[in-house]
């Protein structure tokens, strides 16, 4: 049984050279902080439309950026997903029964 990652409703905006992640619904939309993504993070966020687990996201990142190995990327991807989860911007579900569970 593997964890699957589900994006919460957000809009990615590019304004004045910055890539911003704007949450739309629920408590995540209360703006205590603003989420500014660098290029890697923005690509990962877009990647979440197609890949919904840690290993495939890590492989996607390694394919997208030259010189990045899956082994090197795995911790970065995990950290990013943890941060998104903490902010309420993604949630992890178990594929079989769909309850909320831990990301890692």
């Amino acid at each position: 049984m593997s964890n699957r990652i589900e994006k919460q409703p957000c809009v990615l905006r590019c304004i004045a050279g910055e890539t911003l992640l704007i949450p739309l619904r629920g408590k995540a939309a209360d703006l205590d902080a603003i989420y500014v993504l660098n290029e890697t993070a923005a690509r990962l966020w877009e990647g979440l439309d197609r890949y919904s687990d840690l290993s495939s996201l890590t492989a996607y990142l390694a394919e997208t950026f030259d010189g990045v190995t899956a082994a090197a990327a795995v911790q970065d991807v995990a950290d990013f997903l943890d941060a998104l989860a903490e902010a309420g911007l993604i949630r992890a579900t178990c594929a079989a029964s769909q309850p909320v569970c831990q990301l890692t």
Partner: protein
Amino acid sequence: MRASVSYAHFSRQLHRRLLEDRIPLEATFEVSRRCPLACRHCYNNLPVGDRAARQRELTLDEYRRIFDEIAEAGTLWLLLTGGEVLARPDFLEIYTEAKTRGFLITIFTNGTLLTPRIADYLAEWRPFAVEITLYGHTRETYERLTRAPGSYDRCHRGIALLLERSLPLKLKTVGTTITKDEIFAMRDWAEALGVPFKFDSMLNPRIDCSQSPLEVRLTPEEVVELDLRDPRRLPAWRDLSQRYQTAAMAPYVTNTVYDCGGGIGSFAVNPYGEMSICVLSQTETYDLRQGSFREGWEHFLRQARLQLRTRPVKCQTCEIRPMCGSCAAVNELETGDKETPIDFACRVNHLRAYLLEIPLTPNPLCEYRPGSERYAELQASVAALRQRAAELGVALPVPSRRSLPVIPFQHDGNSVKEGHSNE
């Protein structure tokens, strides 16, 4: 890989950049000028049942197109205001169209038309902020200003609906001859609720040229006395003055009729799709029903914003310009001329500056500067306000630094003389 920065830090950085790049970061949309209240001080309200006005208002499809265009152009902060936004039965649809494009939305409302259904919806699709204006602490005062029986209870019901859902509510009021004795009761009430509160006393004539709001406007001395009664206000005015004296603003301040952020980083759209520099600026409008936002922003509004002054005015070299309530738009509403500063704002500003001991240089164009015709008369008001501060037990802020030149001492034997080295 990612950065989560504080909202305040992010906002400051982005606003700094917009001065160089002229990005339309902030938009104000007057969703409807119709309103169920008939406030004596209001600058733009129309009867809620004004069918002709309703028929002219933008359709939902027109909002969709305009929101697409401004999102593409870089707008982030979106203010939806009125009149009363909820006078539009389809307000939540307009709001949702804006929300799903990723704007950070603030809603100005009087709260009287809020319902549990609307509050539930906002709790799910949360706005950046909701600001409700209080028109009095007591029912009698509130409805004396709004001229709408029952409006006090409806407003308080609306506030409760938002608070029950922990929505990001802010309260505010306007200082008028009717509300002035209840401002601090409203502040205390708001703070007891844990809700931020602010007030403003700068009233303008109506945009249809009626001067009726000025009938309830406070005198400049009354406006500044309200500052004395709130220990946070006077230091805040000085901070504002210092913070915005930046080199980055200089090209926009020196020679242009408009000297604000309108047309550089912000714009307004009225209920009929006409874009302008701000909600008060009425003479230069670009019809978004006839042309694209980009065309209007890049060409029309740029030209409007960069129009040059035709004559020297006292505001051009005014050190306390950033604290002032005067601007081209309000000048035009009150004097009929963008370049003629309104005396009310200038007098309020100078009263504040003298109380704060901000150094002001003589200026032959300004009647309130040392050596000018109204200086002595204004100083009498300053003295009276100092006396009032003493009665209230208010310690006026000590200036943080002096920018007047220090006159060097000259030693002559055992005597010490100040200046006059060429005797």
